[in-house]
């Protein structure tokens, strides 16, 4: 029998605030963190949370991860010491891009002052594993530690990999998450030239008028523990990572496979891994980017994987409230999904007003909705992440019993 993996701590820095609690509470209240077409963490001033040395030595994506990790470890009750052998605690922090701001700044230095003046901190700041390294060093985590890179599925791959790490017995706990900070001149230029960003600056997933994604930044971190070990130390359990499935499109560099076939297979694999059938699913936290292609392909994938239940299950997109956090998205949305199950309150897809006749599922328009349960079982949710490159990841979460 597989080892079960529970969630004991959550942390997030998002455009809705510095603290995980603000993510679900404000989103459910209908607040959108996107300002002028950008999902910036405008409340996050690094020196308010980190030492001078940490601020100077870390790119913004790692700074965001570090602050989110402190919150998650605090909630897990780890602040005064690690509950397990440090060599048995893993750390995976994903990112889609890494320290792009550092690359841009150091490239300017090289151009203006010459190669000799490029900072020795350039590489350790921008390497995509820098956030994982920073979190591991800060908290003394000495088990397996690495970054994961799969564009906008990175954060979800991280959670899935952490689940397997504990299930397989390679670790008893993993601090896992994702972080991204690409709101830079070059970042906008690249995504703009792909015509991926919304020209109107509005994130309204599944709406007929959707015209691209809104770029955001932030980090999400979860503390995962092997269930029996968590119970033995009397930890408060927030939920369970119950299933993970992942496939690839092998289709196109940026466009999703239009039938949703490989994506639906990822959902099916995650449900089977969790031992859940579609009739036991209470909520879907969609990838829902607000691009024409993603939202259409995701809808098809959900219908293929969930069958007739697809029409019954409420589906909402966190990106309607904070934009697209790229490599952090899967982790932040995992946090939001666990919160949704814990609060039994499904936040809406903000901005969804004009239905697309092709997309005929329940995208939770307007306002938050109570998560109704019929038989006292723990609530179950799916969180999807898809990415440039053709990555498909689906995670299944179970809420803690009331």
């Amino acid at each position: 029998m597989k080892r079960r993996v529970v969630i004991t701590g959550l942390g997030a820095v998002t455009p809705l605030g510095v603290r995980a609690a603000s993510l679900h509470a404000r989103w459910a209240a209908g607040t959108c963190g996107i300002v002028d077409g950008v999902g910036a963490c405008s409340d996050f001033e690094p020196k308010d949370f980190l030492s001078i040395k940490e601020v100077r030595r870390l790119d913004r994506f790692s700074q965001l991860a570090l602050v989110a990790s402190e919150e998650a470890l605090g909630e897990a009750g780890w602040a005064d010491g690690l509950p397990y052998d440090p060599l048995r605690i893993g750390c995976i922090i994903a990112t889609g891009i890494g320290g792009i701001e550092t690359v841009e700044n150091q490239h300017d230095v090289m151009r203006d002052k010459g190669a000799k003046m490029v900072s020795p901190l350039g590489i350790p700041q921008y390497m995509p594993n820098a956030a994982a390294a920073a979190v591991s060093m800060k908290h003394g985590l000495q088990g397996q530690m690495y970054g994961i890179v799969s564009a906008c599925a990175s954060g979800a791959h991280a959670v899935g990999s952490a689940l397997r790490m504990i299930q397989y017995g390679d670790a008893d706990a993993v601090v896992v998450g994702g972080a991204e900070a690409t709101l830079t001149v070059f970042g906008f230029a690249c995504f703009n030239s792909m015509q991926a960003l919304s020209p109107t600056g509005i994130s309204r997933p599944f709406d007929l008028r959707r015209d691209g994604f809104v770029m955001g930044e932030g980090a999400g971190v979860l503390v995962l523990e092997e269930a029996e070990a968590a119970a033995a130390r009397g930890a408060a359990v927030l939920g369970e990572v119950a299933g993970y499935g992942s496939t690839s499109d092998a289709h196109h560099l940026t466009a999703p496979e239009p039938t949703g076939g490989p994506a639906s297979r990822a959902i099916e694999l995650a449900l089977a891994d969790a031992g859940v059938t579609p009739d036991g699913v209470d909520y879907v936290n969609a990838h829902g980017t607000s691009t024409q292609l993603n939202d259409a392909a995701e809808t098809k994938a959900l219908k293929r994987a969930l069958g007739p239940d697809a029409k019954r299950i409420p589906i909402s997109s966190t990106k309607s409230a904070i934009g697209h956090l790229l490599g952090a998205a899967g982790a932040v949305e995992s946090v939001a999904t666990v919160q949704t199950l814990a609060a039994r309150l499904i936040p809406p897809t903000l901005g969804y007003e004009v239905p697309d006749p092709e997309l005929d599922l329940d995208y939770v328009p307007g306002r938050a909705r109570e998560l109704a349960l019929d038989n006292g079982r723990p609530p179950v949710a799916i969180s999807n992440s898809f990415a440039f490159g053709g990555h498909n990841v689906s995670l299944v979460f179970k809420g803690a019993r009331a």
Partner: protein
Amino acid sequence: MSTITSEQVEARVVEALASFGPDAAAITREATFEELDIDSLDLVELAQIVEDEYGVVLKGEDMKELKTVGDAIDLITSRAA
């Protein structure tokens, strides 16, 4: 070119080191880099600042010998003379 005094170098070195993280009050001539939590990456940055400011090139082997803030100030002052 006017002569660079040890006091001028000291002021610049202390300012640079303080920007790296340690408490400015702790940065005395006698303080060791180890005590100040200044590592090899920081010292490379210090060397870049010194080269930019005084045209003094400090190589890796020069930096390895430095134990205290005073060692760095004396080396830079002697090279800049």
